[in-house]
């Protein structure tokens, strides 16, 4: 007894021919293929993402809470893109041991960069400390000293490193003090000046009465000047860089931990297809065997199997998922196993009722009277008839599977080692994305869930129409 390809070939080609005429079905299929490509090539498209989603060092160079780059097209105002400067060309100076590096930034945006981060790494063979100054020279000629510090040179390594961001305490304080003088100039009697201000905003703002309350972006050229004074100074250009962190980043923006949501999304699609695919294929297989056996043998076998199935159908999926995942472990494989164990029951019912009809077909009766074995009849003659139905019904299961997985993540039962749409949404919920207006963080993973769900529903329903002519009348 074996499964022969020829038994299936003809049926498949006739179904494929009719399926091509189903517009929604073809659209669904197209989306599935696109997602499959993303899923398969995920490790190359988005390297180093899956295992390091919670590793914040991995994302340290990204902006925080940046909108997608296309936000500029749909929302008013323009946003600064992410700008990384890795060159470290110092200007010639008269003084030995002094390095001066200038970065020019052209601000042409309503929303200037949200943060400026600087990392200076170097060596000095003789000095024990190096002096570092960072100045901000504005379009209007005004200057702010952002940092004035000395950095210790390691005794053994002779190396020093200084990391600075305008969001550090020192940065905030310097910028606030500077802006405060302009604020008081305009509001001399203000007894209650605003305290917290996003430090990046006054840097690029007009020094008018709004500088602390509602800073308005001033367009033009800005210069960031870094001066380093040592004795025998050498800058490690590889390890030094300046970041003008953007307000927009990547195709899908970033979350509050600087993670690139586009890279997470690709893995979301990957795991949605993996979980949905494995659960539905496994369920189809179990349901086909169960349903066909029940239909083929009939009588008390059928009666007993249906009783068992009825009890299974009465078991609610959601509570069972909660208890098993909570007690066994927060793993996607526990989810897959449990969902499969309960997932086939409904399918088996549908397959059995179709199987009863097929069982009565003349060619099956003929095979029985010719003395074919039960297994042979089921596999050769009945399964090829039933499989397309099973596939269609299996495809229709997938949205519920993905939504269930995502919902469990929000309850705190998601797999912490992988990136799924649900995990991204759980993080958005806990990171207060909704009340902070980080719409991309909420919208895009959800669209991922809908896209996968919709594509399988569309394809499954089209397949159902093709294989079940009775449905076409509706």
């Amino acid at each position: 007894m074996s499964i022969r390809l020829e038994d299936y070939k003809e049926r498949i080609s006739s179904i494929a021919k009719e399926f091509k005429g189903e517009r929604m079905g073809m659209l669904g299929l197209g989306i599935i293929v696109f997602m499959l490509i993303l899923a398969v090539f995920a490790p190359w498209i988005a390297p180093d993402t899956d295992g390091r989603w919670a590793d914040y060092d991995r994302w340290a160079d990204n902006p925080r809470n940046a909108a997608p780059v296309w936000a500029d097209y749909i929302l008013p105002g323009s946003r600064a893109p992410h700008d990384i400067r890795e060159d470290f060309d110092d200007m010639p100076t008269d003084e030995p041991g002094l390095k001066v590096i200038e970065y020019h930034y052209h601000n042409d945006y309503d929303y200037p960069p949200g943060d400026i981060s600087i990392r200076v790494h170097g060596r000095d063979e003789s000095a024990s400390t190096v002096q570092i100054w960072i100045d901000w020279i504005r379009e209007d000629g005004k200057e702010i000293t952002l940092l004035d510090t000395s950095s210790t040179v390691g005794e053994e390594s002779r190396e020093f490193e200084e990391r600075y961001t305008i969001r550090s305490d020192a940065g905030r304080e310097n910028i606030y003090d500077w802006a405060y003088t302009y604020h008081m100039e305009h509001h001399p009697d203000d007894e209650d000046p605003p305290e917290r201000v996003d430090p990046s905003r006054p840097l690029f703002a007009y020094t008018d009465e709004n500088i602390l309350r509602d800073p308005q972006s001033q367009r033009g050229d800005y210069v960031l000047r870094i001066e380093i004074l040592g004795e025998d100074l050498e800058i490690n250009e590889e390890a030094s860089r300046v970041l003008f962190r953007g307000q927009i980043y990547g195709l899908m923006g970033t979350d509050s931990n600087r993670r690139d949501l586009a890279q997470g999304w690709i893995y979301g699609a990957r795991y949605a297809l993996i979980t949905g695919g494995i659960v539905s294929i496994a369920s189809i297989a179990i349901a086909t065997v169960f349903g066909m056996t029940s239909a083929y043998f009939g009588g008390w076998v059928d009666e007993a199997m249906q009783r068992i199935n009825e009890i299974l159908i009465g078991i609610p999926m959601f509570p069972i998922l909660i208890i098993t995942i909570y007690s066994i472990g927060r793993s996607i494989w526990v989810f897959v196993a449990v969902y499969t164990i309960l997932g086939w029951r409904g399918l088996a019912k549908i397959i059995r009722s179709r199987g009863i009809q097929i069982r009565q077909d003349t060619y099956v009766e003929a095979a029985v009277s010719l003395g074919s074995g039960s297994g042979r009849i089921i596999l050769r003659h009945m399964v090829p008839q039933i499989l397309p139905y099973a596939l269609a019904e299996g495809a229709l299961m997938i949205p519920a599977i993905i939504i269930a997985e995502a919902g469990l993540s929000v309850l705190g039962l998601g797999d912490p080692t992988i990136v799924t749409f649900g995990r991204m949404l759980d993080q958005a919920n806990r990171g207060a994305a909704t009340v902070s207006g980080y719409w991309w963080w909420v919208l895009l993973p959800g669209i991922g869930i809908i896209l996968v769900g919709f594509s399988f529903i569309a394809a499954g329903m089209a397949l159902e129409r093709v294989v079940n002519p009775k449905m076409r009348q509706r």
Partner: protein
Amino acid sequence: MAIFPDDQKTYIHNLQYDISITMPASWKYFALRTLNAVIVLLVVVFLISLLFSHLADEQLEGTVAEEVRGYAQGLPEEMPVEERRQRIEEYRQERIDHYGLEDPFWEKVLRRTWDTFIFDFGDANSMQVPGGEGSAVIEIIMHYLPRTILLFTTSAVIYILLGIAVGLKAAQVAGTRLDKFLSLFGIVTSSMPMWWVGMLAILIFSFGLGWFPASAYPFPVGVEGWEYYSGVLRRMIMPMATIVLVLFGGRAWAVRNMVTSVLQDDYIMAARAKGVPEKKVIYGHTLKTASPPIVTAAILAFLMSIGGAMITEVIFTWPGMGYLLRRAIFEAHDVPVIMGIVFITTFLWVVGYLIADLVYGYLDPRVEVGAEKKV
């Protein structure tokens, strides 16, 4: 959306194929369905007890250690060390026996199964009854359950009525552009996670427009009468609108399909042919036949959406069962509370399922028990 629509689909299918048209509904049908429900409940409770046995024991051991520590501190200072040690050991053994921690594994599982089955969930591990005394799990749950029922039944009544109305309309105009739009709307909304729509609602109506509070918590305190009810209503509108929006499309679609399939029956053709007005065909002839599956499917859709609605509560911090569950899982790691919530959810589900069954059997006299098809 119903979080597990496949169950529902199967159920409807089950109904349509298991009907035999020879005998009227009998006591046998009702008895068997009830027995089925009890078996399901026992199976689930047994599973809960089996899976949680280890975790629950661990937490109980922690409780015992704490009680012993409290007892040791309460002993008089001047007591000799030997006696002290002995008293503590005796007390520890007494507590271990009290919780039955050293009983055989299966005995513990079976005892837990029975206790859970009769709603005796014991004391919570770390959670307290809010605003009350003690930490009985059943009291904690009863504190939150009414809010879930309030939010959920109100939404259910609205979306079921809306679904039936829209579904009938769609069936009347089957094949038109409106019908197609409604079908698409039903499909798209049922592939959306309900709680995600809730997140979008907060983004738009709380963050963007500032119309409603983003969080339902805390509930209005210290006010009475109209002020209290309007405060609750203000917090309830968004979660309720979310549930209705996500669920009524799918419901309408299901109603439409049931009605249109009846509309193809011969007796409808006959009624039309003899000139019965279209309105009467739909509301009289068709609805009479289609109502059993519509009613049972509505009950089931309601049950199916419990999971999704519980997560929606988390998103809106609506202080109901879902919110409690999330806190028990994520913050308190409170096994007895989780067990209690899971059992009550299962209980409501199984009872609802049974009601759906019985209602169907009552409304449709053709239903008879048995897997064999005798057409």
